[in-house]
């Protein structure tokens, strides 16, 4: 790849989020905590979600990894916190689609905001996993929290 590609990959926004990550740290309360790893490089994230009344009240995390994975985690938390679970899930889906689109998907700035800075990553298959690590962790944790809530309800109802 060329120096231009490199700059397309390492957008200023990405480097900013990398140096100053948002919402970092593990916090209480939370309904689900997951630990995800990128088997290729060993990058890890421990991530908690706190949902209230169908809303993403908090996402907190402890993560180790490269600039792309760190920045992506920061952007993700910023995008989903405060949104309804449904809306957040749809943002997650848009981001995942962008990442897996091999550079052929046009990002929607309305939906993804700072996330569009990752459009360049889609052209680097080896880095797509970095960008997706925490997004997949969030999806997993949220699904777990919802399932538990479902079970609780069932239990309550039963």
């Amino acid at each position, binding site marked *: 790849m060329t120096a231009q590609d490199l700059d397309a990959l390492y957008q200023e926004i990405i480097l900013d989020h990398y140096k100053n990550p948002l919402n970092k740290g593990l916090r209480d309360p939370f309904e689900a905590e997951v630990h995800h*790893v990128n*088997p*290729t490089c*060993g990058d890890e994230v421990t991530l908690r979600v706190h949902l209230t009344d169908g809303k993403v009240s908090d996402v907190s995390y402890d993560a180790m990894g490269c600039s792309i994975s760190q920045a992506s985690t920061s952007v993700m938390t910023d995008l989903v916190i405060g949104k309804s679970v449904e809306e957040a899930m749809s943002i997650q889906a848009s981001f995942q689609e962008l990442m897996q689109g091999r550079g052929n998907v046009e990002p929607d700035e309305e939906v993804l905001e700072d996330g569009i800075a990752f459009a360049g990553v889609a052209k*680097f*298959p*080896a880095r797509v996993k970095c960008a997706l690590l925490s997004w997949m962790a969030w999806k997993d944790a949220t699904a777990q929290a919802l399932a538990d809530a479902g079970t609780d309800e069932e239990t309550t109802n039963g």
Partner: protein
Amino acid sequence: MDGLLPELEVIRKDFPILERELAGGKPLVYLDSANTSQKPQVVIDTMVDHLERHNANVARAMHQLGAESSEAFESARDKIAAFVNAPSRDEIIFTKNASEALNLVANTLAWARGPLEIGEGDEVVITEMEHHSNIVPWQLLTERKGATLRWFGLHDDGTLDLSDIDSLINEKTKVVSLTWVSNMLGTINPVAEIARKAKAVGAIVVVDASQAVPQMPVDLVELAEAGVDLLAFTGHKVVGPTGIGVLWGRTEILDQLPPFLGGGEMIETVAMERSTYAGIPHKFEAGTPPIVEAVGLGAAVDYLGHVGMAAIRDHEHAITAYALEAMATVSGLTVLGPLDASLRGGAISFELDGVHPHDVAQVLDSRGVAVRAGHHCAKPAHKRFGVQASTRASSYLYTTPGEIDALVEALEYTRSYFKLS
């Protein structure tokens, strides 16, 4: 002749080895494709291009060559998944050959716990026409776990004897594993029908498709619906290279099986104390995979797909019908297996009265005709027919009626050489 590939001469030009001259200036008449198929130029060229321009390890590398190599390797998986219409591309696992694919299943079942666990009182069912690679793994499994191996017998015409299916497949049956097309008798087995029976008792169904995938369109979605859980085939018989085979497995089954080989690529995380494993397909692909082989196999299935598997099946059928008819004119020749070409694949094993298969093959070879002699890794099936060995002629998409004529002529010569007429 009806059914032959319309551009047969063009196809033959794709296979450089078919121009090979043998000792004494004899042209090659290659009738050993059930043993291994020849390779078209495009498969060889694709492998060369990979080795000369894109070679790198996969999955692990961040650099450009690594990205190119990983892309080539993983798109080979996509191509193969599409070729057999697999429900999911992640269900395509690369092994080193069909034998490893079958052993992977039997070996991981030996360590499975929970619903898939096999133990005393359990039964595994195979057939008497299996290739050794679909017999020995199940012998090892059942011996080691104290389970019982049972099998379908064969009718005299080389078809499966299904008369005792209701007692053979019963509530103790944990696995039914059978070949789709026999490499010795040519018989095509009713795998969907047997799979449905097996599913009804909750058994796992394994299909050895080593001879089927080369010869006919395969639709795994359809087979999965009938109840097939796992299916194996091998690269070198579908005009691909050696060193690569394929195991397809239903996700739910593969997820339940413990890992097979442990090591690089199959892990999620490793600590000295314990490890966790990756999801499929990587869970079953320890170590550096057969990269250039997968790339070659991708080109191979592209090539076959381009010719068209339905057209290849028709071609095989036409050639086999022609061969069966022509061989019937050779006195003292007995074909083992179905005599109706529509019930069988293109491998024709036969006996020639008074000449041992080794000697038949040897004399044929002196005429440039390459066939296989021996038990073709199907000793029990030979024993069933009261013979120790046979000669086998097997065709493929590049086989011409003229080559069948050469075979028959060489068989007549063999008879005269051994003073039988």
